[in-house]
């Protein structure tokens, strides 16, 4: 049986590389440089191992509004809807998820100028 393992992505993340955070913030939907691509691959592949499920967006209004959720790793278990995290653009949602993941994987809080919502 061919299996894909969530722990397979292991590009080492340097918590001091705030330049990559800034690059993502400038252009959440890309295109991204080589190192940011690797960082994103690790975050996206691993799927938030510190959380009860992978961060996902639920479409509340097609093309207009999305809600943050957590998708459990177990089939049949409901998706957790995070009703106080609602976004009106995908870029804004990507940035919020990126921040959550960066802080989880580095164990560091982002400095104030990088922790704000996307303008």
């Amino acid at each position, binding site marked *: 049986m061919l299996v894909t393992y969530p722990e397979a992505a292991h590009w080492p993340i340097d918590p001091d590389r705030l330049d990559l955070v800034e690059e993502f913030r400038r252009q959440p939907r*890309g295109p991204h440089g080589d190192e940011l691509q690797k960082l994103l691959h690790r975050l996206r592949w691993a799927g938030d191992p510190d959380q009860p499920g992978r961060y996902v967006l639920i*479409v509340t209004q097609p093309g207009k509004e999305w809600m943050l959720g957590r998708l459990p790793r177990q089939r049949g278990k409901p998706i957790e809807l995070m009703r106080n995290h609602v976004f009106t653009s995908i870029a804004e949602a990507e940035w919020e998820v990126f921040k959550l993941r960066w802080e989880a994987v580095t164990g560091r809080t982002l400095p104030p100028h990088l922790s704000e919502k996307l303008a």
Partner: protein
Amino acid sequence: MTDTTSVLGYAWPMVVSPGEDVAFHLSSPSLSKADAALVRVRCGDPDPAGPGIRVHEMDASFERTVPLVHQIIRPGSCAIVADAPALTSFQSFTVGAFLWPTMPGDRAQTVLSRWREDAQEGWRLGLDSDGHLEFVVAAGGRTWRVATAAALLSREWVLAGASWDAEAGRIAVMVRSADPQAGRDRSECVEAAGPTALEWPAEVPLVIAAHASDAEVFGGFYDGKIDRPRVHAGVQPIDGLHRLCESVSFPMADARLVAAWDFSREIGSDRVTDLSAHHLHGRLRQMPTRGMTGANWDGSTDRWTDCPTQYGAIHFHSDDMADAEWEPTVRFTVPAEWRSGFYALRLRAEAGDEPVESFVGFFVRAELGKPRSKLAFVASTGTFLAYANSALRLDQVHAEAMLEGVLTLSRDDVYIQEHREVGLSTYDTHADGSGWSISSARRPILNMRPRGNVFNYGNDTHFIDWLEETGQDYDVITDDDIHRHGVQVLAPYICVVTGSHPEYISREVWEAFDAYQRGGGRHMYLGGNGFYWRIAYHPTVPHTIEMRRGMTGLRTWEGEAGETALAFTGEPSSTWRSNGRPPQRLVGVGFDGQVFTHSSPYRWLDGAKDPALSWLTAGIDLAAPLGDFGLRGNGAAGVEIDRVDWSLGSPPGTVWLATADRLGYGGTPAPEEIRTLHRGVMGDQNAQVRADLVYFPTANGGAVFATGSIAWVCALSHAGYRNNVSQLTGNVLKRFLDPTPL
């Protein structure tokens, strides 16, 4: 947020002719009624950047308010052998089979039984909740149980059985590992006290891979393979059981042989055959996977048709689901004057804060031999079934990385995450990790309806929307009908269009398109990754397909060795490319990669500048990019893409019109495009990852036009439908509908 799931349903049949009846099987756990209307679908994609949901309410004599009840879906496959005198005419007995369990220890599972769970009567052989083999006999309020000390291993063959010796008052379970080496040995025989006499329960079926929960419902479903199950009215030690299970014919029948099922007989059917003198044949429910390698498979062949006796296993799944078995809620006779098309039953209700709007998709076909247009659009029903209720994004680790962004899930996805009983798609794996190879339409299909997740069905409605916008008349025909009637379905049309993603193709459908081309037909293939996987339709059950992913192609699961042949027909499955028919041979281009970062425009090549093709490029600036816009990644070339390849059969007469070959790092090649591992294969470095636009004339004045991109049809509506993608599509369609030979 629109509630799309509080009422769900399916139409049967899924494809209907004008004048025929269609039944809608509906269920709601919360609503007692809904307002119903029949609609013709023009655009099913709710994206506000495009045309949005556009459906036309039909003027039909129809009950506007439909009553709703909650109808349960009962997944889980098993074999059911009706009760017979031979099943109760003994006391001491032995049962057993070869097992390849896939979820031992997940929960209690029954392998072989004549057992009533509600009454706790009869006997059953199975796995307990920890994965130990257990045997239980019970009657009159007393129960005797024996189990192995060790749990069985997942995906390892064992001979597993049990016996009851009434004379000695003993019961036993026995396991013999097929591979007893290196920590895999689970061989053991355990005895315990048993009864000296039992009165068997009356009117209980013998069930393989489950047990009777009560008189109507089955439970205790087993996950894994079962090969050569046997029942013998005598006490056999494990050697005796082994001989019984190894035997595949019983010419000098032991009178005590009660049943010996041979699952390698009638593999394409739902029947299981008993080789004993009792003819205790059975029926399968919920279509488990057949034609699977048995414990005796030796690798000498990879197709069950070559050596059926090595394919005596059925892989049962506790989540197999081929028929929701819902009662029909309303019936409708499609008026004879209705045009063919994509249709749906729209159900609306007010419930709580959210409006309910849920569609049940179905198709009205142009009746065979009675075309009403020169143009036919093919509803890719084989592909719609292959993708039915896909949970790929919910279950597969790679989905977010592949799609290059946080997963955006719809209300339907939220439902499917919780309600796996609707049955998944051929992209998914069963709960035990094995591939989902069968898909049927006797169940709600959430992504084959307006508002559903847009891939194939939703994207294809953008082309319907464009036809309606441009005032072009057309018929709709379906893969299912082409499979059944062959080129007869295509032949009446001067031009046939296949949509954004006609990916799943049976041999019959492939050959119909080939014959159509040879006969002078004109084929517009406005998609990407078409004619890619080889599927079969069920020999008798309509709207039911099977596919095996095999060992190549862009596969979301990989089949087991030796299991790439289709059970429905015995044909090989996997990609058409590995079956000697790369898509390039039929439509000039074939799948080469995906790109989800963004889509791109094409740039025109010299081939398009031939004055003989001025009809094709009329009104188009060949210096400007073609399709630098669109609803899928802001370009007409993207998502899944195809290219010309002369070595894979692109016809020598192909005119290579345009290409999108600068796709950036998001361009990822298909696995079969890479011989060996090396760097530099992604789209930023690899010119073979691209979308190509081609045209070529065929026999008898026919022609093919292909765009090689899923994103194409989603660019048609840009700028009020006035754009070069729309112009080019219109130019080709206009010329293809002109009967003058090309």
